[in-house]
C-alpha cells in the first residue's frame, strides 16, 4: 500500500487553512466590489429607465412620421385618428433599447386631443395635437413619459418653409472655406469653434456671441488665419445685407438663423434658431406681428451686452418658449409609397415613358425625350469653387400648350380623373392641369412657363431632385416668331399656382454651357430683361436663392394660398415634440 510520509501528512491541514484564508479574503473583496457596483448600477438603471421612456416617445414620433408619409391619410388630417396610430403603435410588448443594457420601452397610449385651434398661436394648430404615453424600464425602475406631439400642415401654415434659409442667413463661412482650399483645412484652423458645437460644418451658428461676431456690420474677421494666409479684412457682415421687402407674402419658417436689416416681412416669422436684427435697423412685420425663435433676440441682446437697442416692442413678439417649440423637422416624401399609390389609384409613367392607370396601359403620349443641360452656377455653404449641375437624363413632357400640335396630355379627359401622377423620368411641365393633381418624380420637375394659373385646380409638385426653371421653350418661341418687346415683357413673367417641394433647383436655358471657371448667370436673358417668378401657393424646402439670383432683382414672390393642397391625395405634414414630462412610476 502506498503510504503518505509523516512530514507530508502534517502539511495538509496547513494547505487547507491557507486556501481557506485566501478564499475568505477574496470573497470579502468580491462582496465589497459587488455591493459598490450594485449601488452604481442602481443609479445607472434609474437613468436608463428614464431615458428608455423618453426614447419610447421619440420612437413613436418617428413611427408616426413614417406612417403618415407612407399613407394617403395625410390628405385629410381629420382621418389621422387616435385609432389609426394606436393600432400601429400601441403594444404590451417591451421593445429592447440599447445594446448592452436591460432597458426597454413600450408605447401604451396615443390619443388625439380635442382642442380647438387657439387664435393666439398663429403658427400652431392645437387641433392637430396628440398625447403619447410611453413607459420605460430598467432593473427595478420604471418611468413613464407623457408627451404632446404637434402636427404641422406645412402648406396651410407657411407660405415658405425652409426654402429661404440661405436668403436670410447667407453663406457665413464660404469665403473662408474657399480661401483655405477646403472645409477640413478651415475646420482644423478653427477646431475650437466646431468642437464646442458653436458652429456646424455647414456654417450654422448656435452661439449668440459668435453670430454677432459674424454679422456685426463693419466687424473684424472672427476666424483664426489658415496656415500661410493673413486674416481677411473683415467679417461676413460687411458683405451681407438684407434690406427691402421679403419675397414671402405670408408666414415664413427658416431652419437657420434669420439675420436682417431694415427689412419688411409680410407675415409671422418662425426660426429654429435666432432672430437677429443687425445694428440699429428697424425690421417690420406688416401682418400677424409674431416672430417665434427658439432662442429669442433678447438672448442675443443679453449676450452682446445690450450694445444695440431691443426689437421694437410693438411689432415683434419673440419668445423663448410658451406654446411653441421652434424647430419643425422637414417633410420628406416617401417615394416608394407614392409610387404604390399611383400604381393603384393614379397614373404611373414608367422609365420608358409609357403611362398606366390603375395598372392598365394608357393610350396617352407623354412626349418622352432625352436632354443634356447645364444649369446656372452657384456656391454651396462650403463650396471652394463655383458649382454647376449637369442634367443628362430622360424626361417626359406634361403639356396643355400648343407645342405638340395642340395635343394636351394633362386635360381632365386624358388624366381620366387621376389625382396623382408618378413619373420615373424627370418632368417638363407647362400649361394648366385639368384636375387636382400631385405630380411626383424622383428626378427633376422643370417649370417651363406660367403653370396652372388659369385653372382653379390644386397642384402639388414633388420632385426628389428639386424643381427647376427651364426657359428653352420660351427662348425658341421668341426666336422663331421674332416676338416684339411687348410680347417678351408679358411672357417673361411666370405665374405658378402650385405648392412646390424643393424649389430653386437651378435655372436651365438654351444658352447654358459648362462654366469653365466663369460664373454662368441668366439675368437679362431676354434682350436685357430677366425672368420674373410669382408662386401662388407655398414652397417647401429646397433653396430659392438660385431663383432669386437668376431672375429680375426683387421680382420673386411667393404668395401664400393656405388652400393650395386642400383637395389633393397627399399633403405635406411634419411633426415634432412640443412638450414632455417624465416621472417615475410608483
Amino acid at each position: 500500500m502506498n503510504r503518505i510520509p509523516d512530514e507530508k501528512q502534517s502539511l495538509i491541514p496547513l494547505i487547507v487553512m491557507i486556501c481557506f484564508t485566501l478564499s475568505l479574503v477574496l470573497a470579502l473583496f468580491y462582496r465589497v466590489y459587488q455591493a459598490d457596483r450594485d449601488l452604481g448600477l442602481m443609479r445607472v438603471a434609474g437613468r436608463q429607465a428614464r431615458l428608455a421612456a423618453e426614447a419610447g416617445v421619440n420612437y413613436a414620433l418617428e413611427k408616426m412620421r413614417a406612417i403618415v408619409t407612407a399613407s394617403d391619410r395625410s390628405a385629410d388630417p381629420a382621418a389621422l385618428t387616435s385609432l389609426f396610430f394606436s393600432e400601429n403603435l400601441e403594444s404590451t410588448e417591451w421593445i429592447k433599447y440599447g445594446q448592452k443594457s436591460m432597458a426597454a420601452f413600450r408605447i401604451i397610449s396615443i390619443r388625439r386631443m380635442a382642442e380647438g385651434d387657439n387664435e393666439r398661436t398663429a403658427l400652431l394648430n392645437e387641433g392637430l395635437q396628440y398625447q403619447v404615453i410611453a413607459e420605460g424600464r430598467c432593473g427595478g425602475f420604471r418611468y413613464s413619459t407623457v408627451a404632446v406631439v404637434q402636427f404641422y400642415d406645412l402648406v396651410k401654415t407657411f407660405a415658405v418653409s425652409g426654402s429661404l434659409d440661405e436668403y436670410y442667413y447667407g453663406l457665413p463661412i464660404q469665403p473662408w472655406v474657399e480661401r483655405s482650399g477646403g472645409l477640413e483645412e478651415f475646420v482644423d484652423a478653427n477646431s475650437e469653434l466646431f468642437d464646442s458645437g458653436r458652429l456646424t460644418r455647414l456654417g450654422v451658428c448656435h452661439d449668440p456671441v459668435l453670430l454677432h461676431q459674424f454679422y456685426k456690420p463693419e466687424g473684424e474677421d472672427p476666424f483664426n488665419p489658415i496656415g500661410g494666409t493673413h486674416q481677411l479684412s473683415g467679417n461676413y457682415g460687411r458683405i451681407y445685407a438684407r434690406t427691402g421687402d421679403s419675397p414671402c407674402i405670408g408666414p415664413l419658417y427658416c431652419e437657420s438663423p434669420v439675420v436682417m436689416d431694415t427689412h419688411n416681412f409680410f407675415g409671422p416669422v418662425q426660426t429654429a434658431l435666432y432672430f437677429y436684427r443687425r445694428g440699429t435697423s428697424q425690421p417690420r412685420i406688416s401682418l400677424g406681428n409674431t416672430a417665434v425663435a427658439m432662442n429669442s433676440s433678447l438672448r442675443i441682446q443679453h449676450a452682446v451686452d445690450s450694445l444695440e437697442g431691443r426689437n421694437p416692442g410693438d411689432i415683434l413678439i419673440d419668445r423663448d418658449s410658451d406654446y411653441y417649440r421652434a424647430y419643425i423637422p422637414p417633410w420628406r416624401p416617401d417615394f416608394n409609397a407614392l409610387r404604390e399609390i399611383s400604381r393603384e389609384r393614379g397614373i404611373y409613367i414608367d422609365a420608358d415613358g409609357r403611362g398606366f392607370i390603375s395598372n392598365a396601359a394608357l393610350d396617352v403620349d407623354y412626349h418622352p425625350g432625352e436632354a443634356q443641360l447645364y444649369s446656372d452656377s452657384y456656391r454651396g455653404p462650403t463650396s471652394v469653387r463655383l458649382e454647376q449641375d449637369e442634367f443628362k437624363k430622360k424626361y417626359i413632357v406634361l403639356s396643355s400648350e400648343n407645342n405638340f400640335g395642340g395635343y394636351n396630355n394633362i386635360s381632365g379627359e386624358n388624366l381620366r380623373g387621376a389625382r396623382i401622377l408618378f413619373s420615373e423620368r424627370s418632368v417638363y411641365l407647362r400649361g394648366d392641369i385639368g384636375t387636382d393633381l400631385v405630380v411626383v418624380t424622383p428626378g427633376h420637375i422643370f417649370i417651363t412657363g406660367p403653370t396652372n394659373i388659369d385653372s382653379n385646380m390644386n397642384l402639388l409638385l414633388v420632385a426628389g431632385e428639386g424643381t427647376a426653371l427651364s426657359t428653352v421653350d420660351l427662348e425658341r418661341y421668341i426666336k422663331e416668331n421674332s416676338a416684339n418687346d411687348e410680347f417678351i415683357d408679358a411672357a417673361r413673367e411666370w405665374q405658378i399656382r402650385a405648392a412646390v417641394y424643393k424649389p430653386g433647383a437651378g435655372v436651365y436655358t438654351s444658352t447654358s454651357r459648362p462654366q469653365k471657371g466663369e460664373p454662368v448667370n441668366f439675368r437679362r436673358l431676354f434682350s436685357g430683361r430677366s425672368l420674373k417668378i410669382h408662386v401662388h401657393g407655398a414652397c417647401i424646402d429646397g433653396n430659392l436663392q438660385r431663383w432669386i439670383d437668376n431672375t429680375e432683382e426683387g421680382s420673386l414672390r411667393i404668395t401664400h394660398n393656405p388652400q393650395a393642397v386642400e383637395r389633393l391625395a397627399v399633403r405635406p405634414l411634419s411633426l415634432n415634440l412640443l412638450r414632455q414630462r417624465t416621472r417615475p412610476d410608483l
Partner: protein
Amino acid sequence: MSAHRAGMTVWEVVLFTVFLAVAGGASVFFFFLNSEDVQYAQRKYEWVQDINRVLDAICLEVSNSAQFEHPFNGSSRECFFRVAGDAGTLLPEESQEGFAFVDNNLLYVSRSGDSTSNLRRFGSFENPLVINCREGRFTRISSDLLEIRFLAQAPGAFSGSREFLRRINLRNR
C-alpha cells in the same frame, strides 16, 4: 528521521510569522473599522448620497418644467419655473415654483405675483433640502441648459467642503 525533527524548520517559522502578521493586520483593520474616522467617513458618504438624491429629484422636476422663467440669462441664487398642468396638453400652470439658496440653505419655494414663500416639503424631502451650503448658483448656460453648483459642508465638520454640480437639460425650455 526523528533526529531531523528537533526544533523548527525555516518554513515553519515563515508560516508562523505570516499568520501572526495576518492576525495582527486583521485586528488592526477591525479596530480601524470601529474608529471615529471611519464612522465619520460613513456619515459623510451617506450625506453625499442624500444630497445626490435631492439633486436627482430637483433635476427631474426642473427638466420636466413646462416653462423655465428665471434665470433667463447668466446666473442667479434662485431659479423659477412653471410646472406642467395635469391636463393632457401639459400647458404651464399659472403659479411658479422654484429653488433658492437662502441663508446657507437650499429651499423649495413658490412665487406668486408679489411674494416668495417657502413650501413645506418637496416630494419626500423636507425643506430645507440642503443645509450648510455656500456659493450656490443657478447658471443658464444656454437656452436649454441649466447648471446648479454649490459648496456644501458636511454636518459636524469644521473645515473642508465639497462641490456639487449638476447640468440639467431643459426638455421644454
